[in-house]
């Protein structure tokens, strides 16, 4: 797949079909990858596809000017489609290099499985439905479902639906829906007061670095409401009340655009379980309006559309 990607990417640049290629290259740290955004053919040989290509590269599309060839997993391709639906990206300006995605390995889960930090591990290898983590020369086998990101476990469409070039054979979902929802299920068992306390507690840790927002392809506003000063909607300081307000409103604002890619939670430096918010919103939108983000580039976006008869029971 990697070789195919390099060939295709090089061709796209050489034939001047795109101005940029966005993909992944190995990160400096073990078991990491990092986005590669380049115009230069010589960089193409650094492109990789492996079990650690976590970033949602669609995030960079709204920033780059020009035609872009972009490596996209299932969830990323839906983010791209969502951007097309919102007229933030023109379909003809992107060449989607689709990666059928078997799921991405969550390093923090791996660390917990073996009780060691990432840099103390010798190897992490995926072998079918197993993951083999080698530490101190010893092989530790686990089911892959224990090592994938929660959102990968619940992923509905691991193979991009929208692509120009599909780099491999379509894959089927891992479909561990329950496992992907354990945190949400736990929250739903709580009383409303307990849930509010839970979130209050989580958001008192927030340092307002805005990584969740900046890493999110659906958060493309030129100016975010938290930066408004007249009126000042939220204090620009890390008080839990304002942290919580920011995140709740952010979730409402990206409803119907969020594809459950899990980037916000992965980026959060203080490990707030943000996906327990985004995924719930994803489900609410799906239940109420049978809408799933980024499925159909020709469908109108959730919030610009309506049906005559819907959600009427919530209005007096």
């Amino acid at each position: 797949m990697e070789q195919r990607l390099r060939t295709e990417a090089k061709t796209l640049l050489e034939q001047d079909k795109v101005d940029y290629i966005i993909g992944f290259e190995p990160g400096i740290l073990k078991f990491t990858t990092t986005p590669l955004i380049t115009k230069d053919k010589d960089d193409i040989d650094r492109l990789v596809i492996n079990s650690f290509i976590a970033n949602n590269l669609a995030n960079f599309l709204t920033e780059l000017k020009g035609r872009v060839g972009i490596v996209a997993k299932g969830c990323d391709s839906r983010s791209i489609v969502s951007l097309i639906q919102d007229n933030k990206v023109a379909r003809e300006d992107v060449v989607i290099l689709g990666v059928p995605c078997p799921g991405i390995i969550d390093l923090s889960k791996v660390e917990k499985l073996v009780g060691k930090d990432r840099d103390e591990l010798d190897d992490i290898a995926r072998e079918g439905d197993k993951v083999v983590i080698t530490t101190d020369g010893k092989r530790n086998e686990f089911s892959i479902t224990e090592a994938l990101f929660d959102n990968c476990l619940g992923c509905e469409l691991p193979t991009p639906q929208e692509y120009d070039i599909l780099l491999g054979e379509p894959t089927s979902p891992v479909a561990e829906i329950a496992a992907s929802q354990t945190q949400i299920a736990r929250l739903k068992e709580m009383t409303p007061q307990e849930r509010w306390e839970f979130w209050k507690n989580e958001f008192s840790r927030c340092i307002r670095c805005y990584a969740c927002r900046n890493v999110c392809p659906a958060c493309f506003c030129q100016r975010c409401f938290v930066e408004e000063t007249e009126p000042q909607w939220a204090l620009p300081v890390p008080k839990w009340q304002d942290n919580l307000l920011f995140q709740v409103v952010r979730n409402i604002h990206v409803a119907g655009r969020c594809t459950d890619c899990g980037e916000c939670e992965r980026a959060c430096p203080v490990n707030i379980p943000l996906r327990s918010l985004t995924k719930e919103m994803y489900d609410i939108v799906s239940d109420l309006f049978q809408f799933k983000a980024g499925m159909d580039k020709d469908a109108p976006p959730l919030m610009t559309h309506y049906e005559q008869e819907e959600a009427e029971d919530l209005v007096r």
Partner: protein
Amino acid sequence: MTKKINKRDIGKLLTQWNQEFAIFVPSKEGDTTKMTSWDGKDVSFLDWYRNTVIPPKASFFPPLEEMFHFQKNKGSYDLELPASDGQKKLIFGIRPCDAKALAILDMIFKDAYEDPYYLSKRENTVLVGLGCTNPYDSCFCTSLGSNPSDSANVDIMLTDIGDQFLMEAITDKGKSLIANTSGLDDATEADEARAKEAQETSYRKVTKRVDTKDIEERLLSCFEDQDYWEKVTAKCISCGICTFLCPTCYCFDINDELVKRQGVRFRSWDSCALPIYTKMPMENPREEKWQRVRQKVCHKYEFYPMNFDVIACTGCGRCIRQCPVNWDITQILASLPVKV
């Protein structure tokens, strides 16, 4: 005056110190780690602690701090400074890189005008350092004039020598504390030899490097090279992680809140990575991402040294470990297009 203490007696030692000090130790909060108030018994951090995600600067320069209160009274205002608790504090287990970072922060907070909030906490606190035995692959302190066992910026330094910690008093503060602490054994020459060996082993474990030679000149020479900066910052997402979690970053914002005639002025962490940081109504001098990243790199490696003769980076590696896109400052410093 070198002492030693059994690792299993650390709980007792902290209990003893707790009489006089509020003790702060590395703690887990959710999946993140920071220095928090010791609960009086848990010393399990000795097993898992490598370094905290939130740097210890937060104990002196918190993410959110009340500067003063104000009360509105028929159009008049009464201002009131927050009462200082006067409580003496002890941070147990601070890493050499973070202790050095505090020494770096002292310079800016003492410069010209003294910053009363930071300095009062600093004066009130004893730092007990703990040498690293297991640095991260992202650590590069040895390139910045420090090392995993550096005792230069703490009051008391602990070195892991197996079942025990060697305990050295570094400052007068540290000496008097150790003199008043019971239950410590004198370290033998063999202990000190073991410590030295352990320190050398740790030193070798730090493998990441940056070349800081002529760094100020090199950065100045490519300051205007927009193409270069654009290329190396393309993947940055302009979040505040690398700066907020940097132990030497000190930028802050000041904001008011007024509810029912009771007001507070806050100071909170701010970041040069965020566009709004420098935004003026008509103009933003650092509108573009590459300008902001350049500012971050240059501030640490060029401007701070120009003002205070020290690089404002201690090689703790947090910015590399925590970056959502794995941006690496050492790569930038290594790839500067130097024009001779």
